[in-house]
């Protein structure tokens, strides 16, 4: 294998500085509280921190599951049966980039605050609304991940093979298609997790005890703690991604194409 050139190292170093310097700055600032690490102690002692972080994490997991349940069958049917409408579906999945979250949340509140779908009147209903809103935000990432995953496996032939064995559509989706999209869906799940953990606007307007609004509130009356919280949440998010990655490595997902060996 060729050793990386000096230019290669330089590019990597520049990227490392670009990403790590702000983190380093945040770390140094958070350590200015006296005694050292007091900001971290304060944060970890605050029940709001653990509560909001746990809440956001649970919402993120639910969002990932909801996204998979919506996106995988859609991408599958579009690829298999309706390839002509694929450009339209791709366009629709990109809409969250165009519609700002504040517009989305106002739309949701207007639609779901009055009967017959008064979801915002209960805590569970509002949580469901939050998950639905996040599933929309995650749509571009999850759809693309699923679509790319399906491109890597020959879903048409795998479907026909399973059909000839006697399998129906749901069984095929659950036992044949979904397990082979594991790697692709994990990358979509990473992005969804990262989006949900830091999201502020929707959670704030729906008045949910999420991590984003907690972080914002903390920044209003504390100096060093927001920096400590940012770093801790950063570490926890990466840890969560690592765990998802490890879980996802369960079975091989390499596809042997005909004639490749």
């Amino acid at each position, binding site marked *: 294998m060729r050793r990386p050139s000096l230019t290669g190292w330089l590019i990597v170093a520049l990227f490392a500085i670009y990403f790590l310097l702000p983190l380093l700055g945040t770390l140094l600032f958070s350590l200015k509280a006296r005694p050292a690490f007091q900001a971290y102690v304060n944060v970890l002692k605050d029940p709001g921190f653990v509560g909001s972080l746990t809440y956001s994490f649970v919402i993120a997991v639910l969002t990932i599951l909801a996204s998979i349940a919506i996106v995988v069958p859609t991408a599958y049917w579009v690829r298999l049966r309706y390839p002509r409408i694929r450009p339209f579906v791709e366009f629709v999945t990109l809409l969250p980039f165009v519609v700002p979250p504040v517009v989305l949340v106002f739309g949701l509140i207007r639609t779901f605050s009055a009967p017959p779908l008064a979801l915002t009147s209960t805590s569970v209903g509002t949580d469901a609304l939050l998950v639905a809103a996040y599933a929309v935000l995650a749509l571009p990432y999850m759809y693309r991940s699923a679509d790319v995953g399906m491109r890597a*496996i*020959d879903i048409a*032939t*795998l479907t*026909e*093979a*399973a*059909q*000839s*064995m*006697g*399998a*129906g559509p749901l*069984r095929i989706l659950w*036992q*044949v298609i979904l*397990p*082979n999209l*594991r790697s692709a869906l994990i990358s979509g799940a990473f992005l969804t997790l990262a989006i949900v953990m830091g999201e502020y606007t929707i959670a704030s307007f729906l008045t949910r005890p999420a991590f984003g609004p907690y972080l914002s509130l903390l920044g209003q009356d504390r100096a060093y703690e927001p920096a400590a919280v940012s770093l801790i949440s950063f570490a926890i998010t990466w840890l969560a991604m690592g765990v998802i990655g490890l879980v996802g490595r369960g*079975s*091989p*997902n*390499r*596809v*042997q*194409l*005909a*004639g*490749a*060996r």
Partner: protein
Amino acid sequence: MAFLELQSVHKRFGGGTVAVSGVDLSVDKGEFVSFLGPSGCGKTTTLRMIAGFERPTSGRVRVDGVDVTDKPPNQRNIGMVFQSYALFPNMTVAANIGYGLRIRHVDRKRIGDRVTELLALIHLEDRAGRYPWQLSGGQQQRVALARALAIEPQLLLLDEPLSALDAKIRLALRQEIRSIQRQLGITTVYVTHDQEEALSLSDRIVVMNDGHVEQVGAPAEVYGRPASSFVARFIGHLNIFEAHVVDPATGRVRVGDQEIRTSIGLSGHVREARVQIAVRPESLRFGEPPAGFNVLRGTVGDVVFLGATVRLRLRIDDRHEVSVDTFNDAATPLPDIGSTVSIAFPPGAVLGLDHEPAAEGAAHAASSSPRGGAILSASVGG
């Protein structure tokens, strides 16, 4: 009664493309039938209609007397082997083979026994725990075959299963497929564009062209007595001659300035009418011609070594070049390039193709491009 029956099956795709046009076919129980034809001839579409992946535009498909035309593929109990193997990448070899049985809620022990039995049949007993990507192409296709057989299907369909494999494995697996099919006595329909595969494997061959069946027959029949000009050109190699009728009653024709006798029916032609005739390379021989044989003289243009055989190209005249196959026998010296030699063939070896104007200066030799048309008559080569 036929086990598999296709009755006036048509398939027209959206956009008006007619893929299959009026296919009638009866396959007996335990028979091995191959669909053979060039790309786009409708053979795979026909197979997919039998499997249930495509619905015929009109016509019926019956299996064991039951009309399955409207049944979805997962209710037909038909095993299918695909060109691209289509093994489930997330499952081990054993799980792949047992998948169909799991769907049928067969108990675990019976699934295990059946998987073990099939692994022994395909000689992969030690690969049960491997994943598809850990196997070679040939091994994967054997697993795909075992998976299709595991459900004890009424019919086994194979869609160009060997196309993605290299020549040596293809040959070995070909024999293995035939041996397993004979052992199990399963009715099998095989799609291929490889004529050698079809000729060596099949009880009967269905030659297809442009969506319809050109001929159905045993391999020797299809090769020796082609029912159409297309079949004659598509199966095997042909030396095609532009000839002029000398005597329609006796079947004598003239190639260049050399006269040859045939046993084809020329009664519908007048003297000097142009006809196309053909002779297979293996029907031609060198040396002293036996009594009653036709003789053509030509100049050796090329000698091509093919391993067990040698193919010589002879120039008969400005318009005709002939391929002659002879055994690669050290005791029989081959003629030098440029030397003049005689080749002989019996009148019965001449196939009469329909008349088609030859391109100017055409010198047809070896395998010609497939073209349709009726055949004048057919005779078995000597």
